[in-house]
């Protein structure tokens, strides 16, 4: 029975079904309160968590997102149920941390991870196309490194307890969300009173949907970066069919809920700074490829005991703190007196993206095994 389920989830139908389910859940979460075109954005939601903990003080993006907690714990449940939980670690953790931090900075210059790029597109935001072009180019560069022998080395099997660390951290976050302790006057835990951080679906719904997606994605190995990488690397359309299903079903669900609005400028939490939409996502795509998974996939891997993915996740959360503290994250387009004011990153953000690309290229060039 379990083996047959495993086969189904590994099949083309399995991945399409799961992509479709995620595609429906995203806009549904928006309908229930999550920010527009941000049904589920792994990068944005980890950034909100960083804010809630006070790792950055951007008041509009602070909330402990239960979806992220659910992703890790749902994956863990699936991994235990199917006997795939396996604690492993030790494949160049410091590199994974750096890749995570720069992946987040790149994503916050675009204002979203590949998941959100899909949801933005499905909501009619045409700037997402620009980001996706950057993402594909970034992944293409990463694939060239993979082809020339890049890899971060083998992980080692380790104590089961190692695999529990990130899931337990997630349980801790959930408790902080439920009990909302105030650690000092004017101190954390912070919860946004306005802006995207103040917009959220009911806790239980977000958590249950997060758990469901975590479970299904662990079974199917759903990965938005892998979707593009596998096509470039070996003309394998398996994962891409899942991502395509996500976008198609998110589009249809948006139509049903009246959430589809076609446009380019001043779209929800997005900007029209063309070059930085491209370069931000290029950096993110390259970093995901070098680290072996999109931000969602890293959470699912961490849930099944992968300590290296857990380090990548912590790198992303740290990167979010850096991105906002140092004014690297892009500003969204705004409308001032009826005129669209173009958003985008500060000069610091631009420099950080270039620096990130240089660092990723250096990692790619210097960490290749000669055959």
């Amino acid at each position, binding site marked *: 029975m379990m083996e047959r389920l495993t086969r189904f989830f590994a099949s083309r139908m399995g991945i399409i079904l799961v992509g479709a389910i995620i595609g429906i859940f995203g806009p549904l979460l928006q309908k229930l309160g999550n920010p527009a075109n941000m049904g589920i954005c792994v990068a944005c939601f980890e950034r909100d968590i960083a804010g809630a903990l006070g790792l950055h003080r951007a008041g509009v993006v602070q909330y402990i997102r239960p979806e992220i907690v659910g992703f890790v714990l749902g994956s863990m449940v699936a991994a235990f149920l*199917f006997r795939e939980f396996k604690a492993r670690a030790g494949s160049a953790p410091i590199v994974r941390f750096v890749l995570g931090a720069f992946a987040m900075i790149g994503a916050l210059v675009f204002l979203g991870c590949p998941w959100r790029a899909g949801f933005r597109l499905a909501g009619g935001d045409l700037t997402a196309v620009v980001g996706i072009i950057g993402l594909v180019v970034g992944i293409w560069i990463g694939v060239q490194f993979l082809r020339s022998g890049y890899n971060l080395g*083998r992980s080692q099997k380790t104590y089961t307890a190692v695999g529990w660390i990130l899931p337990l951290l997630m349980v801790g976050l959930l408790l902080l969300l439920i009990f909302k302790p105030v650690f000092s006057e004017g101190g954390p835990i912070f919860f946004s009173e306005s802006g995207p951080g103040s917009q959220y679906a009911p806790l239980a719904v977000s958590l249950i949907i997060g758990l469901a997606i975590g479970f299904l994605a662990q079974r199917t190995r759903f990965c938005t970066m892998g979707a593009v990488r596998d096509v470039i690397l070996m003309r394998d359309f398996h994962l891409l069919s899942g991502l395509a299903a996500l976008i198609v079903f998110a589009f249809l669900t948006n139509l049903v809920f009246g959430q589809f609005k076609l446009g380019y400028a001043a779209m929800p939490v997005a900007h029209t700074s063309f070059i930085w939409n491209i370069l931000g996502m290029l950096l993110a795509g390259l970093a995901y490829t070098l680290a*072996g998974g999109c931000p969602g996939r890293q959470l699912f891997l961490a849930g099944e005991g992968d300590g290296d993915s857990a380090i990548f996740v912590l790198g992303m959360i740290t990167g979010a703190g850096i991105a906002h503290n140092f004014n690297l994250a892009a500003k969204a387009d705004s409308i001032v007196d009826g005129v669209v004011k173009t958003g985008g990153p500060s000069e610091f953000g631009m420099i950080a993206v270039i620096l990130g690309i240089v660092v990723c290229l250096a990692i790619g060039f210097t960490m290749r095994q000669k055959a």
Partner: protein
Amino acid sequence: MTKTVDARGLSCPQPVIMAQKAISEGEFPVEVMVDTVTSRENVRRTAERLGCKVSISQKEDEFTLVITK
């Protein structure tokens, strides 16, 4: 002679790249060792897509895939 590819401890797509390279060299059987179900399924799918037959055996939590043409 059996060609052995040890992809244990490597995360995808590494095992797939290694298996693909071994298959393209055209000497069969190719034996691929992996230690996650994800890698097992990915290598199996890729080998079958390339028109090969795959038989899988398991020892504790490691898998050996024997790929033949």
